[in-house]
């Protein structure tokens, strides 16, 4: 199979995935927009009014600024979370692809990650719309959004490959993931700025691949600041490394899939 066939196959898989998400439901694609909005409203209420979290930035004491800050983090987390929760069972769900036909199985996690990216992008469109509605216009720097998404996307690919392969042999992985996803959410500066964490612990937060992405995204959107080249390239390089390791693992243990499923 050549590259063109792979691309076409990915396109098919992704469109089936995206279309299938809300297929048969009454509101259909509206959920893609409605569900992040509803979630955002709830979080805003709880964190800004009940817990009264304040961003240490100084000026954003108003709820809408808080909401938008939050939203960036939620969307980025969502991208990774979908990958982490869906890939461990993806091969089991498509067992006939493993056992009955010749299929480039490594494409399956890729389709999951791209599908998650599509929903993240929809969420970002909603974010931009709200932003423009509230503050009039978007800073030019938002054009650099793909830069923010890229390392996270690459990392997700690696995680997807690793988990898809691992999930075949170790079923517990699928059980642990929801827990892990929640931990990831709170261990990243989504609901709070990184400065809210005591200095000696800030380093730990940096291990979370979301942290840098969220900080970058917020800086881009609210201060129009482009990411610094050196840390960015380091982040990207690490992501690529993770992706490579994930794929290598997948390909190495691929032989046993048909026997275990």
């Amino acid at each position, binding site marked *: 199979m050549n590259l063109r066939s792979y691309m076409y196959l990915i396109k098919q898989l992704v469109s089936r995935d995206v279309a*299938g998400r809300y297929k048969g439901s009454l509101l259909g694609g509206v959920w893609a927009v409605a569900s992040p909005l509803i979630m955002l409203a709830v979080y805003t209420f709880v964190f800004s009014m009940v817990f009264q979290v304040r961003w240490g930035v100084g000026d954003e004491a108003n709820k809408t600024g808080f909401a938008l800050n939050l939203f960036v983090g939620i969307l980025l987390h969502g991208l990774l979370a979908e990958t982490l929760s869906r890939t461990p069972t993806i091969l089991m769900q498509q067992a*006939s692809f493993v*056992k009955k*036909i*010749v299929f480039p199985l490594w494409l399956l996690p890729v389709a999951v990650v791209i599908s998650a990216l599509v929903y993240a992008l929809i969420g970002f469109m909603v974010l931009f719309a709200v932003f423009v509605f509230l503050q009039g216009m978007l800073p030019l720097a938002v054009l650099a959004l793909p830069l923010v998404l890229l390392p996270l996307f690459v990392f997700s690919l690696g995680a997807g490959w690793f988990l898809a392969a691992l999930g075949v*042999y*170790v079923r517990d992985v699928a059980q642990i993931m929801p827990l892990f996803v929640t931990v990831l959410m709170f261990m990243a500066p989504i609901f709070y700025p990184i400065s809210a964490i005591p200095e000696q612990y800030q380093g730990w937060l940096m291990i979370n691949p979301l942290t840098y992405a969220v900080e970058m995204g917020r800086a881009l959107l609210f201060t129009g600041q482009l990411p610094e080249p050196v840390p960015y390239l380091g982040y990207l390089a690490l992501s690529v490394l993770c992706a490579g390791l994930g794929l290598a*693992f997948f390909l190495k243990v691929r032989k046993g899939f048909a026997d275990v499923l």
Partner: protein
Amino acid sequence: MCSDLAVSLQGVSKHYPIYPSPVRRMLSLLFNRNFGTPKIIRALQDVSLTIAKGETVAIIGRNGSGKSTLLQVLCGILQPTAGSVQVQGRVAALLELGAGFSPEFTGRENVFMSAAVYGLSREQIEQKMPDILAFAEIDEFIDQPVKTYSSGMFVRLAFAVIAHVDADILVIDEALAVGDAYFTQKCMRFLRAFKQQGTLIFVSHDTHSVITLCDRALWLEKGHTQMLGGAKEVSEAYIASLYAQDAAQADGGEHRQGEFGSGKVEITRCRLLDDADKELRLLEHAQTVVLEVHCRALEAIELPILGFFVRDRLGQPLFGENSIAWADDWQQMQAGGQYCLRFSFIMPLLATGEYTLGVAIGSGTQMQHTQHHWIYEAYAFKAQASPHLTGFMALNEVSFAAQSVADKA
């Protein structure tokens, strides 16, 4: 591999290590070492097969003999543990009903998906879609989710797809058995046309199709090659072996189920012979047959009778006869005597299926007799008739005439 070979399998073996747990399997694969000793299941042992382009080869064998495993190795779904596999050309396989079909999506969407897996582009698929739909004949269901399909529809659609992906090599597993007679015929017509330019590998339990469609056959028994040769010889040897067990038992084995009698006479052998004096195991046309029964009388018997019945798969007696009408020829049996008894008759062409022959030796008259040895299933054979035949058997010596008659005033 030289260019007129489509498939070359050399010394292919497939062993399945059964690990104590999936985790150990994963670790073993990761680090190229064995974690925990696996038990080895030998699905295939040293199988070699070369198939030239344009050839049609059948793979036959009992359930569990390794046929599906061999096909999976051939298609590249499984990697052989030893040996080499070389395939030249695009392979399209029908290995399982609805393989690769996602239940939530419509037939049309699944066709796109399946064809894409075979490497076709969107334009190519759109071009072929009308042909695929015409072949599958599922009409408006093509736009319904595949989960609503019956198994017959599945196989029609799956076959329609692989029939149109421009494959060089087609691999058909037993999945075809699910279709109705009409569809099976349609597939056979397609396969016959395909044979002209493509290579076909056919797995089936239907020995008749094997003989008519295939040039050569490979008989697998418990993972190794039992026989490789012309389709007719291999099929016949295979059928013979299927019943070899029965024959061995009829040749004076101990009492088994389905037998009873006084024991004064013992049937030692029972065979149905065709006009070439060979055991008839596959009935394909009406013919003169001889039912030959060997028996041994342990005591002297007056007015012996030999009777037989032919029964279908459900045990329903179809027809039979006994020797009373010829009693003059056989008035008694000596104690210790051995006899060879022969019934000769024209066996009609029976409907496709499996049949058994029951025999019994008794003595007395039609009204009152004793059974000395009755064997419910002494011999088994298969019949292969046209699929259009309904009812039990085909008629012989039929003629037809039509004539117009004047109206009565």
